[in-house]
């Protein structure tokens, strides 16, 4: 058994239904790393890494991308319920046709959109809030198994304030009919799967402009600093 399984939150590394795990999942038991200085600190990357239009994936080119415009917003908090302010949030996604702007995605059946790169960045505010404007990504086929399709999703990368809080994950949309067939979504313990699904948010929906989805991200608690940290 690998130790990531059984915590009730994260997927196991060894998950045969997802074929790419076969030669990449470690086979030996994981060791335990104490939470010392390198683990309780982390890169405090912020606004200096974010450009003017990085938060709006619909305004990064001369024209507007094809597809339903959406607002994706939420809060980044830690496991103790505290806001995680001023932390970098990076996203990337397929376009409305389910095509990534990437040399590894060459399917002629789904077109590229000249007005959509599919990458965004922002930093959380003092209350841990983030907000992106983008288009709703399409589902897309992959070769994991016969007639395999990924449910529509947006990739998220979040730092938090400590090395132990680093999280890369995917946000899904409500009621996707592909959920029961996707081994990546299904790798998460069943009780935790709803935490990967955004909820429709009428209050944040902007009339005659864009539907909104809210997705909160909960990182590990930072824990108590085990001993005094060096002064500045």
């Amino acid at each position, binding site marked *: 058994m690998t130790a990531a399984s059984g915590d009730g*939150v*994260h*997927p*196991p*590394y060894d998950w045969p239904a*997802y074929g*790419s*795990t*076969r*030669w*990449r*999942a*470690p*086979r030996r038991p*994981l*060791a335990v*790393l*104490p939470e*010392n*200085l*390198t*683990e309780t*600190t982390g890169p*405090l*990357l912020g606004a200096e*890494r974010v450009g003017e239009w990085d938060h709006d994936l619909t305004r990064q080119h001369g024209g507007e991308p094809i597809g339903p415009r959406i607002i994706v917003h939420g809060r980044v908090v830690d*496991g103790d*319920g505290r806001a995680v302010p001023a932390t970098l949030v*990076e*996203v*990337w996604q397929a376009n409305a046709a389910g095509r*990534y702007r*990437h040399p590894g*995605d060459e399917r002629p059946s789904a077109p590229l959109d000249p007005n959509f*790169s*599919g*990458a965004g960045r922002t930093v959380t505010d003092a209350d841990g809030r983030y907000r992106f404007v983008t288009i709703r990504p399409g589902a897309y086929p992959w070769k994991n198994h016969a007639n395999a399709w990924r449910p529509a*999703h947006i*990739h998220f*990368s979040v730092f938090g304030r400590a*090395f132990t809080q*680093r*999280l*890369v*994950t*995917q946000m899904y949309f409500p009621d996707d009919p592909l959920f029961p067939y996707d081994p990546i979504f299904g790798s*998460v*313990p069943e009780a*935790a*799967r709803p*935490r*990967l699904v955004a909820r429709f948010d009428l209050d944040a929906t902007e009339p005659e402009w864009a539907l909104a989805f809210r997705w909160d*991200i*909960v*990182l*590990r*608690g930072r824990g108590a600093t*085990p001993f005094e940290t*060096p002064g*500045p």
Partner: protein
Amino acid sequence: MTAPLTPAQTIGPFLSIGLTWPDGPSVVDPAASGALRLGGRLLDGQGEPVADGLIETWQAGPDGRFPEPGGPARQAFRGFGRCLTAADGSWEVVTLKPGPLPAPGGATEAPHVDVSVFARGLLHRLVTRIYFADEAAANAADPVLRSLPDDAARATLVAPAVAGGYRLDIHLQGPRETVFFVA
């Protein structure tokens, strides 16, 4: 109050769209005094290169201190490195050698770099550490290395010195599988 944690998902094969930073590998200015290259290859259980992976590093500076937000030290030394793996599985950051760090109980941790490994096929990040082979005495006293079962396990975390820096391959699986920690 506790909130239920958000589960991890794989970084997938298209990570370069969102996570490419031109300055990602520069933990410090390559022209800085003491700058060295730290790198290696990321290999799967068949010994094949992982060409769609991401390595991130986090470490103290030579004085054992971590960059402060907004402080001048942060401009010179970011402490954090990020490098996409190349077609041959290779990655490399330019950094400074970290100093030793105090640990609970009066122990001292040997100079080390914390590493996150992301890739298609990894449903959650892997966490490992890199130590430095020319710190033999410090490594022998390091509480984390000492907690590992044997010398073969310890050796997977210790990077030999090479010209201009240090190199260590990360083996996701197989007879030389790297020691990974609970993430």
